[in-house]
């Protein structure tokens, strides 16, 4: 997968969101995500911070939950809405019940980052940064990649290892 997948998904804001809706974004960050995973929970404030810090520069950060909500009810759409409201997410949070986006992205983990440039070419894939403990972070992979892409350059690292829970596929 080298370009952004097409999608048309319902968001926790009650609206549908398609890839075309983000056409004006200078960079689009898709993050495979969910509710129940402690790794996601440890990083979600940083996801909001990145959206707030880079929003003025045309970056859109979009979290997508593709987990099987039958086996993992904490990841149902209702629970997504509840968590987004409780935690004040600054980013769009979309529900992918068919798991089509996760399959297109070939995602394996939550959280797992896919950064696309203005032409929606994949420029960075992997982790948000190098520690689930925000006080221990030394490498800001996604922020560094965004800075590089927005400046027309190459991310210092194009690929890192995402650390987190597995995507919960339907059986």
């Amino acid at each position: 997968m080298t370009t952004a997948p097409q999608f048309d998904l319902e968001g926790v804001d009650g609206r549908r969101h398609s890839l075309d809706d983000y056409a004006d974004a200078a960079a689009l960050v898709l993050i495979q995500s969910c509710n129940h995973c402690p790794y996601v929970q440890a990083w979600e404030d940083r996801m909001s911070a990145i959206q707030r810090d880079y929003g003025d520069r045309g970056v859109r950060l979009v979290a997508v939950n593709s987990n099987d909500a039958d086996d993992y009810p904490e990841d149902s759409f209702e629970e997504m809405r509840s968590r987004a409201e409780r935690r004040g997410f600054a980013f769009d949070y979309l529900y992918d019940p068919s798991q089509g986006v996760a399959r297109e992205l070939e995602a394996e983990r939550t959280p797992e980052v896919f950064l696309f440039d203005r032409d929606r070419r994949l420029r960075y894939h992997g982790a948000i940064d190098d520690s689930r403990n925000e006080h221990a972070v030394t490498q800001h992979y996604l922020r560094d990649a965004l800075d590089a892409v927005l400046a027309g350059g190459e991310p210092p690292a194009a690929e890192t290892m995402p650390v987190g829970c597995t995507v919960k596929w339907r059986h």
Partner: protein
Amino acid sequence: MEPRRRAPRVEFLYWEGCPSHPEALDLLREVLAGRGIDARVELREVTTQEEAEALRFPGSPTIRVDGRDVDPAGADGRPALNCRIYYLPDGQVSPVPTREQLEEALR
């Protein structure tokens, strides 16, 4: 002479799909060594939902000392093959228990 204290039974249940168990096991062994407890850690891999239910496994890793969960507050969570959530004193979450939780459980 004071009678020698019996080594506790230490069970470590994990699911391979969550990456947190090696870190938690290292921490557990470090705490055991630090307290001079010569206990064998019984490792048990949980591989199916049926096993998770039979073992009352609320997520990986789950650590029990003499049958008592090191985080009693989370012990009754829904049995499932997932990463377990531990709450830190500052309200943050972690996929592994804290050193203090392990120390307390082994006291």
